[in-house]
């Protein structure tokens, strides 16, 4: 009896998984197939998939760089996203850790303020960001974008704070008795324990910078300095296959990153951690 119930459970689980996999993969699969379409236009399609397959659009993407310098865009994006990821993750983790572990006077005020600040419609402040950047002379400059992404990252510390809240404080106290300073506790104990969260943070901040469209559009004026997202949007309307190829290729680093980091993310270190 129990066994059949188990079997049913397994079948049901796999059915749901297949369904979810299908739902998520299908539109992507469509985009991937479109990128391998031999004709350039979206309408050389036969129902859902292109009528002829070929590598044209990828060849175009990397060879025809007079107007649409995809390789350069890709390098730009990689540069911006990597540095934003590193700096942003450090700042977020620091903020979240402090907000979770320390009790100081202005703490609750800061927490409420950040919550409220996030509520202001973001595009409204774009005018201000643009003018600030012209005053700091950071237009057409990738560091300007990195600065904004990194500076904006701590606003989203709540996820990470929630995580630190679930790590028992007993660990810290034990270390403190042994004479460790706060900085040491943070570096040597809390950080290793929060590896999954760091990975999650890194992944999301990388993706954010990687796929953002509005800010680079605002701050990068030169075609050569574009990121992939802005560049793809500037493609002519008849170049759908190239657009699809560019969109598919842009996903590669994130998928790679995912496969490298997923073990850390999910299995994490929970097995060995002291539980409260």
């Amino acid at each position, binding site marked *: 009896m129990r066994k059949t119930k188990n079997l049913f459970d397994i079948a049901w*689980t796999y059915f*749901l*998984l297949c369904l*979810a996999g299908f739902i*998520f*993969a299908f*539109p992507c699969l*469509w985009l991937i197939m479109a990128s391998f379409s031999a004709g350039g236009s979206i*309408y050389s399609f036969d*129902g*859902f998939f292109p009528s002829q397959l070929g590598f044209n659009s990828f060849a175009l993407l990397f060879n025809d760089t007079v107007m649409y310098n995809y390789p350069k865009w890709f390098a730009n994006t990689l540069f911006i996203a990597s540095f934003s990821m590193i700096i942003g993750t450090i700042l977020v983790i620091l*903020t979240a850790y*402090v907000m979770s572990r*320390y009790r100081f006077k202005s703490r609750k005020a800061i*927490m*409420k303020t*950040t*919550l409220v*600040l*996030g*509520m202001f*419609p973001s*595009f*409204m*402040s*774009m*005018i*201000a*960001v643009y003018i*600030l950047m*012209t*005053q700091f002379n950071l237009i057409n400059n990738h560091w300007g974008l990195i*600065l904004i992404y990194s*500076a904006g990252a*701590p606003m989203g*510390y*709540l996820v990470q*704070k929630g*995580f630190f809240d679930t790590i028992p404080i007993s660990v810290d106290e034990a270390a403190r008795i042994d004479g460790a*300073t*706060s*900085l040491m506790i943070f570096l040597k104990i809390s950080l290793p324990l929060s590896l999954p969260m760091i990975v*999650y943070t890194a992944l*999301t901040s990388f993706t954010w910078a990687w*796929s*953002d*469209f509005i800010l680079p559009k605002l701050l990068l004026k030169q075609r050569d300095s574009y990121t992939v*997202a802005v560049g*793809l949007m500037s493609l002519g309307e008849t170049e759908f296959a190239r657009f699809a190829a560019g969109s598919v290729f*842009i996903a590669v680093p*994130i*998928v790679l990153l995912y*496969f490298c980091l*997923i073990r850390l*993310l*999910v*299995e*994490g270190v*929970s097995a060995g951690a002291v*539980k409260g």
Partner: protein
Amino acid sequence: MLEAIKKGGIQVALSALFMGLGQLCQRQVGKGLTYLFLHISALWFFLRYGAVMLRGFITLGERRANPTLNIEGDNSVVMLIMGLFAIIVLIGYLLLYAANIKDAYNTQTLIAAGKKPLRFSAELKSLADKNFYRSALFLPILGVCVFSVIPIVFMILVAFTDFGGNTVPPELVSWTGMDSFFRILTLQQFAPTFFMILNWNVIWAVCATALNYFGGLGLALLLNKKCVKGKLIWRAFPILAFAIPGFINLLAFKFMFSYGGPLNQMIINAGYSPIGFLDLDAKWMARIIGLLINAWLAIPSSMLLAAGILSNMSKDFSEAAKIDGASAFQIFRAITLPFVLFATVPVLISQFIMNFNNFGIFFFLRGGLYIDGYFLASDTDLLINWLYNLTIDNNYYSIGAAVSVVIFIITSIISLTVYVLSPSYRQEDQFK
């Protein structure tokens, strides 16, 4: 501070006159010099730039530029922002000034009590220990101030000017007080549209947040099951959706649901007439499609989040419960959900806000429509899309800013209340 003013001695007075002097007299050379240096550089900043910036903030420009004649003039918008910047520096300076007085007084009391004041190097060292939070938060707060607070305060201030329409640089902008707010109140078409959109906006935000949250959690739980083999691969499917930039996915979806798109292609091939999934008659259909597409885009990251949090959950409870004969659903309700909820209520709130202000979905899927009965908006537009129509499409910056201030007040009151009442805020230490 008051105490310092009441009971401070000559050293405190010296510090109040010129930062660092008191400390120097108290033989705290390192600290005194640091304060002195900060004071002088602040003065230099104000003389060189700050004073002009502050004046510009008040006047918003006195000379109109004319580029064709090479007449350089004032750019009101730049002046407004740089004035704000100077105000933030001024506030920082005043805080430093207060800290300087307090510090001089502290040293005075310590000396009076016969104790030896801390050396400057020791105080610096405490930044890595007792005052670790100060050093850790310095950069984040600075960044947030410059790139989030200044722009937001700027937009709020814009609501009190006449910026927009034909009054854009090089025209000079001026302060107009509450004019924009009165204008919103007195405009008849405005209120009906506002409430219609607000209504839909709230429905949208609630549904979207719930859908994304439970979708992600469900997927994470499904993948957490022991019986599932090849988790790496299963998990990769949603990641694929996550890896392609959202706006590209939105464009692809827009095409898929368009009249010439593959879905209608199949419908036509099957012998039916095509459906206008997103066209101007498709009110609720477009709304529901929007919800589903939004879920498609957001579930992957909420799945990752839930997976991260579940990995941190102790298995002891649930295993104990299982041995006691609890059903899977009971375990979920009594153990898993409270745990995950505890860790994620703040996240839930921020996701609610993000969905409330979700600009991209309907901008990309169904932009460029003004439906009858709405004032410059369509029936799928959220408040933020409407704001966009007002400010960017039609250039009414000050009106748009006034509307966003109103929205901002409403949403912040709601979410602050929820947040302050939530268990994660009130019992932060429960799981420790």
